[in-house]
């Protein structure tokens, strides 16, 4: 009996240690990024495609003010309210003192320079799929952005979500190094997939989440409840979104639906970003959406 207890204790400790190991924050080694050189002009396109300003600029910022990443916008969720931090070039209140490997670790692993997990309100699970060259370009563009000395406000979360280590477990369950949509894609559809899944993180709103807040990849872009509490975020699968590719591309440019209603909610801000891209990129997103598999009878999407 005593022996059994000891065995159980040892097993328990081992499981705990393994858990700590598996959920520990990791960082991207600088050697992996050696030889990359960023181009700020190309980085601006990455910046708009990735939608950084939609969350990190001040609420309702327009024009040049969208380049001031002072944070402060609030994002309600089932787990509490997340507040976007200052990620401007200010060395004290923003990220002006970061190195490029720290920037990549934040964007692709969701880990801060202090080794703490970010919450996945920050779409690092999508940015994880971005190319390192795009991140180098983005970082080069970031150096040209203005500073803001606005202090970051803390998130307003309840226990147990205040324990950041739990995010390590979440990451084990939810991080993937693969695109959701697979199979034979044209070059245009593949470009659209990269833009939609890696940079523009469309799935963060348009895909429903499971009880733990992970994206339900089996219902990819099939529409989801609006986290603000009322209404639904519309489905983008071709059985539901029946606009032509030209209509989708035009909507992503000028914000008007085919019947000249206008985009609202957070999508208005998304279009302010996507409107900055090359026209071919918006057509690529449209081509990708048209290539999405349609949900089966039971509502699941065959991936």
């Amino acid at each position, binding site marked *: 009996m005593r022996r059994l207890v000891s065995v159980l204790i040892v097993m328990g400790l081992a499981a705990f240690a393994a858990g700590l190991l598996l959920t520990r924050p990791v960082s991207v080694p600088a050697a992996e990024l050696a030889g990359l050189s960023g181009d700020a002009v190309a980085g601006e396109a990455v910046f708009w495609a990735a939608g950084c300003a939609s969350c990190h600029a001040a609420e*309702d910022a327009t024009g040049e003010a969208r380049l001031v990443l002072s944070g402060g916008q609030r994002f309600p969720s089932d787990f509490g309210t997340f507040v976007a931090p200052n990620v401007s070039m200010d060395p004290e209140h923003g990220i002006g003192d970061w190195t490029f490997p720290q920037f990549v670790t934040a964007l692709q692993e969701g880990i801060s320079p202090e080794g703490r997990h970010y919450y996945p309100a920050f779409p690092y699970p999508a940015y994880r799929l971005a190319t390192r060259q795009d991140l180098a370009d983005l970082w080069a563009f970031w150096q040209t952005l203005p500073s803001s000395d606005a202090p970051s406000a803390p998130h307003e979360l309840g226990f147990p979500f205040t324990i950041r280590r739990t995010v390590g477990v979440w990451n084990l369950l939810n991080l993937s190094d693969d695109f959701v949509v697979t199979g034979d894609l044209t070059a245009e559809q593949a470009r659209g997939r990269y833009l939609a899944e890696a940079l523009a993180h469309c799935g963060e709103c348009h895909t429903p989440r499971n009880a733990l807040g992970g994206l339900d990849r089996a219902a990819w872009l099939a529409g989801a409840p*609006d986290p603000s509490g009322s*209404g639904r975020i*519309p489905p983008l699968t071709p059985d539901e979104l029946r606009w032509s590719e030209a209509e989708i591309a035009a909507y992503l440019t*000028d914000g008007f639906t085919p*019947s*000249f209603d*206008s985009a609202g*909610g957070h999508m*208005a801000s998304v279009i302010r970003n996507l409107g900055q891209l090359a026209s071919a990129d918006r057509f690529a997103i449209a081509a990708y959406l048209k290539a999405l598999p349609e949900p089966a009878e039971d509502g699941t999407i065959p991936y």
Partner: protein
Amino acid sequence: MKTRTLLASIVALAAMGTGIAAVTQDLPGPVKARQGQMQLMALNLGVLGGMARGNTDYDAEAAQTAANNLVALAAIDQSFSWPEGTDNFALEGTRALPAIWENPEGFAEDYMAFGAAAEGLAAVAGDGLEAVQAAMGSIGGTCGACHDDFRQAN
């Protein structure tokens, strides 16, 4: 038998008709009025947007008419269109967020921004396609800005 089928169809159609009418009547007059105003905006924006997107040929006269209509629509005083208790939590069939009543100054400001953009558009609507395209960008921005804060996403 035939007459019976016909009669049944008429009864069924009438029932459907009243059903539809009942749903429409459920919305208070001010809600229907403001939704109609939005639809008029969409109709006239569609004329200009079709040209701006290259779906229809640029027509200076039609562009000017549509732009003038937008200016006229923006000039409609909104005092009676947004009574208390007509937000999307109180009523089915509207996407008007409570924020409209919580932040009336912001709402009025966004509405006036639309008016200013419509006037900007009307000033250049006859000057060619490029002028219309540029002005459509700014008017679209004002639609989006207001819907961003004051209309339920879907």
